[in-house]
C-alpha cells in the first residue's frame, strides 16, 4: 500500500516540542489537583483548569501525533463527532443529577 501521493502536506513537525508541552501541562494538572498544593480554591476553578488542560492535551495529541492538522478536513469532522455527541449525552442525563 502506498501513501503520500497527493494532498499530503510535507513538513517536519517538532514532536519533541509537543512532548515538552504535554509534560508541562501534565505536571501543572497534577499540581492543580493535589489538595495539599491548592488547599482552598474553589472547586469550579479547579474543574475548569483540569478539564481545559485535558482538552488542550487531547488536541495536541490529535492534531500533531495523529496528524489531523495535515489531513483532509473530513477526518477532523469524523473525529469531532463523538466529542459533540458525548457532551450531548452528559447534558441529557443532567436532570438525573
Amino acid at each position: 500500500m502506498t501513501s503520500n501521493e497527493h494532498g499530503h502536506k510535507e513538513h517536519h513537525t517538532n514532536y519533541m516540542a509537543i512532548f515538552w508541552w504535554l509534560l508541562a501541562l501534565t505536571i501543572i494538572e497534577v499540581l492543580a489537583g493535589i489538595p495539599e498544593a491548592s488547599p482552598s480554591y474553589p472547586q469550579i476553578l479547579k474543574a475548569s483548569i483540569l478539564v481545559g488542560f485535558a482538552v488542550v492535551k487531547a488536541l495536541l495529541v490529535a492534531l500533531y501525533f495523529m496528524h489531523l492538522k495535515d489531513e483532509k478536513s473530513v477526518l477532523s469532522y469524523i473525529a469531532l463527532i463523538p466529542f459533540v455527541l458525548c457532551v450531548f449525552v452528559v447534558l441529557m442525563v443532567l436532570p438525573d443529577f
Partner: protein
Amino acid sequence: MSEVASASHVVEPAETPLTPESWGKLGMWIFLAGDAMSFGTLLAGYALMRGSSENWPVPMEVLGINLTAFMTFLLIVSSVTMVKGLEAIKNGDNKGLVKFLSYTILGGAIFLGLQAYEWTHLIQSGLYIAENPHGDALFGATFYAITGFHGLHVTGGVIYLCFIAYRAKAGKYSSTNWNEVEIVGLYWHFVDLVWILVFTFIYLL
C-alpha cells in the same frame, strides 16, 4: 476502444473530494470515532453516578496519584516513540522504525504492569466492584470498569504493535510503504488520548 487500451486499462474508483488517500486510515478513524463513543458514554455514566452521589470519596485520597502520573507520562512518551517510528520509516529508516516500535511496546507493557500493580494494591485495601471502604460503592464499579476497559485497549494495542513490529523486522515497510505503521500509530495515540481524559476525570477531578 482498441484492444491494447482495454488490455492495459485498470478501473480506478471514482475520485471525489471525500476519497481518502488510504481506505485503511479512514477505516481506523471511523473505528476510533465509535470507540470514543464507548469511552464517552462510560465517562458520562461515571459523571452521572458521581454527581448524584452523597458520599463519593475524593479520588486523590484513595488512588495513588504519583504512580498514575508516571503512567500518564509513560503513555505520552510511548506516543512520542510511536510517531518517531513513523517518521523514521517515512525517511526509509527501517532499523529506526523497529527500534521505536520496540520502545512503544515496552512503554505499553510497563503501563499494563503498573496498572495491574495499582489494581492489586486497591483490591487488597478493600476496593471492589461492589464494595468501597471509603464511601460510595459505585466508586469501585466505575473505577474498575473504566480503567479496565482502557487497560483492555492497551493490551490489544500492545499485541497489535507486536504484530506490526514483526512485519517491520521482516522488511515489509519502506519510505513509500508505511500506511500500516501510520494506522497502528493512530490506534496507539487514541489509547494515549483516552488515558489523558480518564486520568483527568477519574483521578484528578
